[in-house]
């Protein structure tokens, strides 16, 4: 794709419409005419010596872009630019000298004219090309990164742990025998959870309300599985329900709270999920009074790492995530998103 970018950049930088071309020729004629009228022959000749190699280089690059297309490449374009500008400067030199001789004006030394003609055309034409290349590379990197993130998100969305599924179904089997209505309830939560956990893979955007709903189904399932031990509360103000947010960020935090807060700690654990809007920032807090992150200093879990990478890619420094232990012994995962993100996600 790089080479295609190159051909496109050449067309954009050096090409012109008929009208633009006509206007440029008119400008040139005006400058030439004025110099002639004022008798500035030295200036006119030097002007010609500079402009002609520039045009030659433009023309050859455009021609090469048309003929070679994506095979041209940045390096090829650069070499071609230097070669044409050099050759044209060389070719124009005798004309420059003979013109000045005809006008009887002292010519500049050959080397100076050559350097001038070559230097100006390569600088004027080469710099934009170099900038375009830098920009194209940066764009390409960004595209790659976005594609990787999108792929990762797809994988995440498709990933329902078999472990979770089997244990949940085993619970349902027992309930079906003993408390059929509870079994139905559990199945309904499971279906709703799977429905939103394995959604249409295209969706990059979700809403706060939808994410809370998904977290609610997951916690309801877990509360049936763990029994009395797990209690939870979800609080999504209805005014915020339609706020856009990326999918599966909240799920990661809630799963984390269950895995590292509820599972390792005997006895009752409470999970509290809240969302607030404060001056343009959406803050989502998942708090639990469970085991906490403890002393383990190293982790290989991909959940939180993935979350941080996604935040970084989507919002840069405008989003934040911290995990903290409050004095009251609660573990709080705090996610801060710019609320104006709605427009970006929709775009």
């Amino acid at each position, binding site marked *: 794709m790089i080479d295609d970018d190159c051909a496109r950049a050449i067309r954009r930088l050096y090409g012109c419409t008929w009208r633009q071309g006509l206007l440029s020729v008119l400008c040139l004629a005006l400058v030439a005419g004025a110099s002639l009228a004022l008798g500035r022959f030295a200036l006119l000749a030097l002007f010609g010596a500079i402009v002609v190699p520039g045009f030659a280089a433009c023309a050859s690059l455009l021609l090469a872009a048309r003929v070679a297309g994506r095979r041209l490449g940045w390096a090829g374009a650069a070499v071609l630019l230097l070669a044409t500008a050099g050759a044209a400067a060389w070719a124009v030199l005798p004309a420059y000298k003979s013109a000045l001789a005809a006008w009887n004006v002292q010519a500049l030394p050959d080397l100076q004219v050559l350097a001038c003609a070559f230097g100006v055309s390569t600088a004027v034409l080469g710099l934009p090309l170099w900038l375009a290349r830098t920009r194209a590379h940066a764009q390409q990197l960004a595209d790659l990164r976005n594609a990787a993130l999108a792929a990762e998100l797809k994988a995440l969305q498709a990933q329902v742990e078999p472990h979770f599924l089997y244990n949940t179904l085993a619970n349902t089997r027992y309930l079906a025998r003993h408390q059929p209505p509870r079994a139905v309830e559990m199945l309904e939560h499971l279906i709703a959870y799977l429905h939103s956990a394995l959604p249409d893979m295209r969706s990059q955007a979700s809403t706060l309300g939808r994410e809370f709903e998904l977290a609610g189904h997951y916690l309801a399932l877990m509360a049936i599985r763990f029994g009395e031990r797990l209690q939870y509360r979800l609080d999504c103000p209805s005014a915020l329900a339609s706020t856009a947010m990326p999918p599966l960020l909240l799920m990661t935090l809630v799963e984390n709270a269950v895995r590292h807060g509820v599972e390792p700690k005997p006895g009752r654990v409470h999970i509290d999920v809240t969302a607030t809007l404060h001056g343009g920032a959406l803050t989502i807090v998942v708090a639990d009074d469970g085991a906490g992150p403890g002393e383990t200093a190293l982790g290989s879990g991909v959940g939180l*790492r993935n979350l941080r990478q996604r935040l970084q890619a989507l919002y840069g420094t405008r989003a934040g995530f911290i995990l*903290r232990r409050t004095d009251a012994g609660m573990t709080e995962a705090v996610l801060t998103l710019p609320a104006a993100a709605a427009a970006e996600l929709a775009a």
Partner: protein
Amino acid sequence: MTAPRILVADDEPLLRAELVEALERLWPEAEIATAQDGIEALRLGREWMPDVAFLDIRMTGLDGLEVARVFGARTHVVFVTAYGEHALAAFDEGAIDYVVKPIALERLARAVERVRARLATPPPDLTHLAHFASRLRPLPAAPAWLQATVGNTIHFIDMADVVYFCADAKYTRVVTDALEAHIRLSLKELADSLDPGAFWQIHRGYMVAVRRIASAARAEDGALWLHLRGHPARLPVSQRFQHLFRGM
């Protein structure tokens, strides 16, 4: 002969109830007690002296493997394990039996049969289960991130962001482009768990991210120093580790 005593330990109440129900059917004369976590299982093991224990491996408090280890040779253990959670093949070699969750009745019936047959003989000693356990637990992957505490906030540092580690008394200082923080591990403990291809120990007190090494240069006194890519620090390479930079 008195009724055999069976302990069932699982931290999910419904699954526990299901297992109890199945065992009551398969082994009607047995007496069954339940534990809702590893700690309770341990207490019942000591006070009630069960003949057989069905232990969930992944359990709150103490996991099933740890409980079995404390039981030693007093109790016949059957592990209950979630599908795909552990390397089950390792069990097949030994005298240890297991059933997979969600429990299939035929599989449980076979396990019950086997354990009944073995009841007369002393149970295998599971004190040395550590050996087994190391094979049962999934191998820990090289860590992808680390936690460093600053105040009461826990920073998550991606391993890919680490420039170098530096021993600092009992702890280790981790240096990234953005921050410096302490982690509660000695450099030695850290060195054992890091990916040896990504981090090199270059000194008793330093480990450096390989991809950040720019060059190694000898100072006038003969000491070798590392220069880093995009970071001003210069790190010493001690004699012991200079072979890493041979030819530089």
